[in-house]
Each structure stands twice: as structure tokens, then as C-alpha cells.
């Protein structure tokens, strides 16, 4: 069974949200439209909806993350759910209880949704295969594989500014090799019919046969950024310098960093995006990050509405009597 099929019920409705790969445009549009309707909640005097009242959401983070966890927590709380945050260190040196044991224990606390982040690709899917059928699993990042809620908030942000996807040219710049954000975003953009998706990176930061994902490959921003509508910069992890992938941060910034000069190659109204947290002076110049084309903080705001949408859709599908959740 593939990842795509395990996240859907027999009617093709989302039970879990593990990856954007293989979903239909209808699935993504439903999430985007729902998020749009939920976006107003934050501007109300009482920032809460009763949708998930009485439900318990567990943030199960096996990999440190403050930002993503916080937005999931906020999304759940705005839907009136009870939230439990569990940070489980998984240093390979300390072999604790198995993932399955951890899972069984938390399941026994009668929760309704697991939001999972794990350093191993496929971890969220593993959990979805092993949880009790009434529990929804949301992937908050698994290894290099997928980060589908990030991809959805990215396309949500793009759609608010540039709703005509077929005419859209998007460039994703930086460490594609290790990026779950890039993989999920590429799938989401292709499903929504984006005109052209480009990746820009040195050969060391591109996965094998990356073209098979349906992208155009560029090795230099001078070529790849020309006339694009959206630029998505990826975070560069410091560890990459030691892995013989890059000589230095300075050289990376000089060749690939998004500066005002490079931004000028793109369309005049191009959006600058970044999944955060940003490394100023490594992948992006401060003037660009804080400049008028940057929608980086808007992405953060939108992340809450998008996660609220995904939570209410998946848990809603679990609640249906004909949901085929066995």
C-alpha cells in the first residue's frame, strides 16, 4: 500500500495528512478554501471556534521544533481542542522505548489526533499504519520525505497573491536534497497545475534524478530566477558544510543567496518566501527578507489557518459514520 492510499478512506476522503504526493486537486482546493474561511477567526475578538471541542490533539515531536509545534498548538486551540505537547528526544545513543510502545501509551490516553514530527522519512506513515482507526495523523515533517502542511500554507499564501496557477513560474532555491519542504511543495504545485516549477541548487544539494519530480533544474540563480513569479528560499543547515556538500556559508551566499540584485531578475511583483527559520546572510539578505516582496511573516500567519483547516477536515472525516475507518 502506498502512502497516498493509506491517508484516504474508501470514498477518497482525507483521514490522515501524510504527504501531498498523489492527492487530487479537489483535496488541496478543499483545504485551501476551508483555510480561507478560517482565516478570519484570528481577527475576531474571541479567536475560537467550537469545531474540535472535546477532542484531544497530541503534538508528538521526536525532533526539536518550536515554531512548527507552536503553530499546530495554536491551530488546535483555536478550534477548542485540548492540546498535549510531547517532546521525545531520539538521540540514537539513548535507545529508549520503541516508537510503537510510545504510540500505544499515548493512544491509551484516548487522544483523537497525533501531529508527528520525526527525523526518519516514513515515520508519519508508519504511525498512521499502526494507530487505532479513530485517530487522525498529521505529518509535521518526516526526515527528508514530506512536510505537507508547510506546502499547503505555501500554496495558500501564493494563491492569495497570485491565484492563476497555470501562468505561475515558481523557483525553489537551496538545499533540495535534504528538504521535505521542497518535496511536498513540488507535489502540491504540480497538483494545482502550476505552469513551471524550477529548482536552483549546486549539484551537491540536488537529489538523484530530481527532474522525475516534474521540475526544471538550474544550477545558477542568474539563469533560474529570470522572470519567476515566486521565489522559495530553503533553509541551509549548518551541518551541510561538514558533509563535504558545500565549501562555506560565504561561498553559498555569494553564489545562491537571495540579494536585491538577484531578486531584480525575477518579475517585478515576485513573492519572496521562506519556510523559516531564516539564516540571514546565508541564504537570504536581510534587505530582501524584510523587503516589500517578502511574504515570510504572512506565511507564518497563514500556517495557523491552514493547519486549522487540515485538522477539521481530517477529524471531520473520521467522525462520519460511513467513513470506512476500519
Amino acid at each position: 500500500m502506498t502512502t497516498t492510499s493509506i491517508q484516504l478512506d474508501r470514498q477518497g476522503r482525507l483521514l490522515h495528512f501524510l504527504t501531498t504526493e498523489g492527492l487530487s486537486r479537489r483535496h488541496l482546493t478543499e483545504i485551501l478554501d476551508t483555510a480561507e474561511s478560517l482565516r478570519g477567526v484570528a481577527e475576531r475578538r474571541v479567536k475560537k471556534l467550537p469545531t474540535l471541542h472535546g477532542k484531544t490533539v497530541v503534538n508528538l515531536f521526536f525532533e526539536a521544533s518550536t515554531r512548527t509545534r507552536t503553530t499546530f498548538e495554536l491551530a488546535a486551540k483555536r478550534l477548542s481542542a485540548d492540546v498535549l505537547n510531547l517532546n521525545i528526544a531520539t538521540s540514537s545513543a539513548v535507545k529508549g522505548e520503541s516508537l510503537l510502545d510510545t504510540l500505544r501509551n499515548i493512544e491509551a490516553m484516548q487522544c483523537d489526533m497525533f501531529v508527528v514530527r520525526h527525523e526518519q522519512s516514513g515515520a508519519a506513515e508508519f504511525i498512521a499504519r499502526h494507530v487505532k482507526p479513530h485517530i487522525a495523523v498529521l505529518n509535521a515533517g518526516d526526515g527528508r520525505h514530506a512536510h505537507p502542511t508547510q506546502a499547503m500554507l505555501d500554496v495558500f499564501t501564493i494563491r492569495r497573491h497570485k491565484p492563476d496557477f497555470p501562468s505561475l513560474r515558481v523557483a525553489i532555491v537551496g538545499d533540495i536534497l535534504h528538504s521535505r519542504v521542497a518535496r511536498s511543495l513540488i507535489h502540491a504545485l504540480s497538483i494545482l497545475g502550476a505552469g513551471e516549477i524550477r529548482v536552483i541548487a549546486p549539484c551537491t544539494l540536488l537529489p538523484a534524478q530530481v527532474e522525475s519530480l516534474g521540475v526544471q533544474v538550474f544550477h545558477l540563480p542568474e539563469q533560474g530566477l529570470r522572470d519567476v513569479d515566486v521565489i522559495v528560499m530553503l533553509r541551509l543547515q549548518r551541518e551541510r558544510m561538514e558533509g563535504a556538500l558545500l565549501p562555506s556559508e560565504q561561498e553559498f551566499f555569494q553564489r545562491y543567496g537571495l540579494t536585491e540584485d538577484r531578486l531584480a531578475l525575477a518579475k517585478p511583483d515576485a513573492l519572496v518566501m521562506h519556510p523559516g527559520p531564516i539564516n540571514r546572510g546565508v541564504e537570504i539578505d536581510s534587505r530582501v527578507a524584510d523587503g516589500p516582496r517578502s511574504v515570510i511573516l504572512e506565511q507564518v500567519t497563514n500556517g495557523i489557518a491552514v493547519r486549522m483547516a487540515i485538522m477539521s477536515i481530517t477529524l471531520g472525516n473520521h467522525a462520519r459514520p460511513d467513513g470506512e475507518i476500519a
Partner: protein
Amino acid sequence: MHILIQGGRVIDPAHQFDAVTDVFVAVGRIAGLGQRPAGFKAERVIDASGHIVCPGLIDLCARLREPGLEHKATIASETRAAAAGGITTLVCPPDTDPVIDEPAVVELIRRRAKAAGHARVLTLGALTHRLRGERLAEMAALKEAGCVGVGDGGRPITNTRVLRRALEYAATFDLTVFLTPLDPELSHGLAHEGQVSTRLGLPGILAAAETGIIARDLELIRDIGVRVHFGRLSCARSVELVARAQAEGLPVSADAAIHHLHLTENDLLGFDSECHVRPPLRSQRDRDALRAGVSNGTLGALCSDHQPHESDAKCGPLGDTEPGISGLDTLLGLSLRLARDHGWPLMTLIERLSWGPARILGLPSGHLGVGAPADLCIFDPDASWRLAASHLRSRGQNSPFIGWELQGRVTHTLFDGELVYAYEA
């Protein structure tokens, strides 16, 4: 014990023999074919009509987990599974715990196998002390203790100077060297580096991790004249390199694991930990080249690469699981399925499972000549059946082939002239 195997189709690749005839077994040896030897009084008659009678299978790589990992399996449990699979000889690589780098470990394994009595267990000694790739193991003593060869035990030697000396030293004592080519620096990944690893976000192991090491090793052995066997090849290019070396007359042989002839990288989609193996499952093109290599003889043996695991070892996200497939139970059934689907002659297939590996090891068995050890496998070639977990006799239940249709069913296995397995429906 005198055993008469009556009316079976006897296939003996060593003698290119294929005919319906009787086999006479007496005191552990093949006593006659077709003609009843003088003084032969059958104490037991096995009706083999409609069945194939062939040499017992010889498996070039089976990890029995003893000594060291008895929670996974034991020599007794795995040799019993081997017997049920028609396998009468198993080669145990040196990466046990303790490592097979001193005669005492060889002796221990021999004693345990003898006590179990289900199959012959042969050992490969370590090329280097503790398999660390730093200093040579006492290979002469290991040979004297009974090791049929020496090897890297799945931990390739990175230091080329040490490897060169190890090969030279092995040549001195006429030992065949069993190498598993996979560059440690290039093989931290979990999947073949290609479209599937890119989609799944799994760190990749590129084909050059294997072919680069083979190319290096072939250059090294050119002047040493040592016999080298490359185990568990996974890439099309590797088969080409070995074929070219053989054509040049280098004393080089190679094998493939049966799962590499059936599965590809696509079987990892869905992060199936049962398909987590090393070397990784590669592309369809690689799989097809391995099939061709086995068919044309570049790869002289097919093995199970048996690696039984407890269920916890396979339960988790792919990267947290251990590699390997429990393969003794399915070696013959998967091989016969290949032969059926691709029209391979049974003679060829049985050769790769018996006489081929026997020659690589320099064994007196693997054939049905009069006087040979009476290691025999009798199977019904027409039975096809669906593999269920309950069929696996190995303690390791880790198999991606559960639910697959297998071809052929072992009905009897004779080891050293004794009936060690008989199928009961």
C-alpha cells in the same frame, strides 16, 4: 541406512544428467544410479515419481545468528528451516559475535551444527582480525580448523594496503576470498539512489558504491592470482565488470541473492521495512541484468542471503529498522518461480543452486556421482502455492514474499544419507 529413491526425474548438473531413474543411498553416500549396487537392501523406499531428485542446495550466504544474536535465531532453528527448504549446506559468513577469526569459533559452530544434525554448516574465516580491516587474521589456522574460505563478512576493507596484503596472504594458503563489494563511505543510505529514493526522501546508495569497489578489487587481484568471489551483487554494471574479468581469465566468481532477482526499488514505496536490504534493491534494469547474469553463468550461484530478525527489528520507520530478509524457506520456491516465468531449463537453475556454489567452494558435494555425499533434495516441481507467515520455519518471520505465489514444493531432504525432512500435507 540404505534408502532407495524410486522413479524420480534425476537432475545432476555436474554430469549433465537428466533422466527418470532410481537413486541408491547407502551409509551416507550415493551408492548407485539406475543400477542397484551389490548387497543393497533398501530399509526405506521413497516414491519420487513425478518429482525431481537433485543435489541438496548449497547456500553461499546464510546468517544463522549464532553465536552472538541467539534472540534472532540459532543454528538449530535455522538448519531445520534449511532442511525444509531443500538446503543441505549453508555457508556462514564470519561476522558472528565473536567473529570467526580463531579456530575456537569454527569449532563451536561445527559442534552446534553437528548436534542439530539438520544440515552441513560451513564457515568462512575473517580476512582481518575482528573484521576491523586493520591486521590480518590467522588465516592458515582458520583453514586448518575447517574454514572453506575467508571473507570480509559484509564489512568491506577500506584500507587498500591491508586488502592487498590480505589477498596475498590468502593466496599463499590457497584460500578463496569472499568479498562483499560496497564502499562504506558511500553506503550510509537506505535505498538505491534514484527516482524512488528521491521521492521517498530516503538517503541513497548509488551504484558506484558497489561497482567502484569491484573495479578496485579486480585491479588488485590481477597480479596476485587469488581466487575471489563477489557476494550479493546488485547492479547491472557489476555483472558487466565480473563478466569482463572472467573473459580475461581472472579467477573471479560471483553470486546474487534471490530477492534481488525478484524485487526492485519500487517495492520500497510505502516504506516497507521488509524490503530494507543491503545492498539495496535497485532498478528494474539492474534486476534484469542480474537475472541474465544468473542465466548465462556470469553469476555462478544464487543464494538466500538469509538474515532472520525478531519482529521488533523490522517494526519502525524504515531508517530505524535492520536490513535483511529471512530467505531459507523461500530460496527454492522463488528460484523455481523465476525458472517457470522465464523458461530457464531446470538443469541451469539447479546448477546455480548446487554444483555452481560447490565449485566456488571447492566441495566434494553438490553432485550425484557415485561416492558423493548423499545430500539430496526431492521436490514436486508442479506444486504452486501461496506463502503464508505460518509456512516459515525460520525463526525470522521477516519476508517481503508473504502472500507471493511460489513454485515447487520440497517433499524430502536427505543430508549425509539421512532423511532430515519429509513434507507432511
